[in-house]
């Protein structure tokens, strides 16, 4: 029988806030890093706008390496780097660097795939008009890919949220931390149930919001 009278609702509210901050800030940096990387992957691939097979192979290899490290391992491996970057590996701040490093390659790959879906003919038409390459990328390619980019961002945000919860293992903050310290280590099943329920709700909300945005930007 679950007894809700034991719950410290203030703690839960604060942990939810921390999870949102970790997810939001990490998402911002993930997009800032992953979007250019994804664009670079797309344009340097063979047959594309700025074909550079050598550059593509290197970038693609780095992305694959980062994506093949399990996130829990990455969390631990990143600790010294995180300390170097922001002075601590604990709490909300400490969780952000590994989150960004863990999801940027995923996001970059998603961006690359989305851009590949843009009709080749549209890009050819722009080239035929004599539009310089950088204007094709920012004026045509990205706007054409907008619904797909938003969908990719949604997927990444949800991945970030689950990773953020995982960072509780190494002392990151938020709902994951709460679930591990109270729900797991102190056997407070109620806390576990509530954190999981909250995570489910947050994910539903993000997905719904993302879908609405995709619909808004779809012109088909």
């Amino acid at each position, binding site marked *: 029988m679950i007894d809700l009278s034991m719950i410290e609702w203030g703690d839960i509210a604060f942990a939810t806030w921390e999870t949102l901050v970790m997810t939001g800030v990490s998402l911002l940096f993930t997009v800032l890093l992953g979007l250019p990387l994804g664009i670079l992957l797309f344009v340097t691939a063979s047959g594309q706008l700025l074909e550079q097979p050598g550059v593509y192979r290197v970038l693609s290899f780095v992305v694959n390496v980062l994506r093949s490290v399990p996130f829990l391992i990455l969390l631990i491996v990143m600790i010294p780097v995180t300390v170097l970057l922001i002075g601590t590996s604990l709490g909300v701040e400490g969780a952000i660097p590994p989150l960004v490093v863990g999801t940027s390659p995923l996001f970059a790959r998603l961006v690359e795939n989305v851009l590949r879906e843009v009709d080749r003919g549209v890009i050819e*038409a722009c080239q*035929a*008009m*004599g*539009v310089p390459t950088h204007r094709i990328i920012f004026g045509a390619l990205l*706007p*054409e890919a907008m619904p797909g980019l938003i969908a990719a961002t949604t997927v990444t945000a949800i991945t970030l949220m689950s990773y953020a919860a995982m960072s509780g293992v190494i002392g990151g903050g938020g709902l994951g931390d709460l679930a591990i310290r109270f729900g797991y280590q102190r056997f407070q099943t109620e806390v576990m149930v509530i954190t999981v329920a909250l995570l489910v709700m947050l994910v539903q909300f993000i997905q719904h919001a993302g879908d609405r945005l995709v619909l808004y930007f779809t012109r088909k």
Partner: protein
Amino acid sequence: MIRIEQLSKTFRVDGREVSALNDINLEIGKGEVFGIIGRSGAGKSTLLRSLNLLERPTAGRVLIDGEDITGFDRSRLYALRQRVGMIFQHFNLLNAKTVAGNIDWPLKSTGSLSAAQRAARVAELLALVGLAEHAHKYPAQLSGGQKQRVGIARALANRPQLLLCDEATSALDPETTQSILRLLLDINRQFDLTIVLITHEMQVIRTLCDRVAVIDGGRIVESGRVADVFLHPQHPVTRGMVAQSDPLTAAMLDPGHAFAKDKLRGTLVRLTYLGDITYQPILSHIAAATPARFTILQGEVSSIKDLPFGQLLLELEGSDDDIRKVFAELDRFEIHHEVLQ
């Protein structure tokens, strides 16, 4: 205006050299509508894309207004492409931009016009292609024909001297095709715009083009005035295309298939004529001038672009001398005749 000299293009596919274009030589005049027709894979698309260097030729030269564009650096290439419009089979419009936004896009990203000048130019182009009331729609809300009109307006935005049409009507129904072809012809006349188009439909060539080149296996196998190529196709590919678009001509070129041999007694002759002679009473003249008798087995009087033409399949009966007289009369009127059997 355009001169193509010894143009060749080879692709590397799986380490093997595949020849797409082989020693192409062409000359296209200012204000001319020039058609390139061929089956799929014949190389027509590669040839068209060599005119704005979307495809880099392996060898040969492409001269536009006397300048060899294959040697252009990046900035001159951009400048060239702004003077050369292009429209596509699948329209290739930007789905995220409105109709007006699509037409404005080349102006905005390449030109030096102010926002107000651009807006005026967009309005002018919308009126030209008859889409003024659709300015704020997105391409997905338009029909195929309307999309191609947007494509045409967009291609004309920077006032090009040359328009390249890549199978521009192949994705459209016959009625819409006719209206787009009429629009292209209007534009050709109104702005003295040179048009080079590729197609696999003989009908498009007949409606729009002054001259045509037939391409097969990366080579030009036949070229000339549309009426000449259409009425006297030499190469099997050309004959095949004429047959497909025009069964009547096909039957006249090869009457053995169309008529029962045992019913024919006389000489089968095919007459073809172009221009004003179409309006002359030739047959009644011949009937009066010679004792030969004739039966009309098949015939067509029509026009290719603006040029009236006629072709008749006659069965002539009479003595050898009578028939020689008929031929002499035909020669006098400059009517082309060939004995088929």
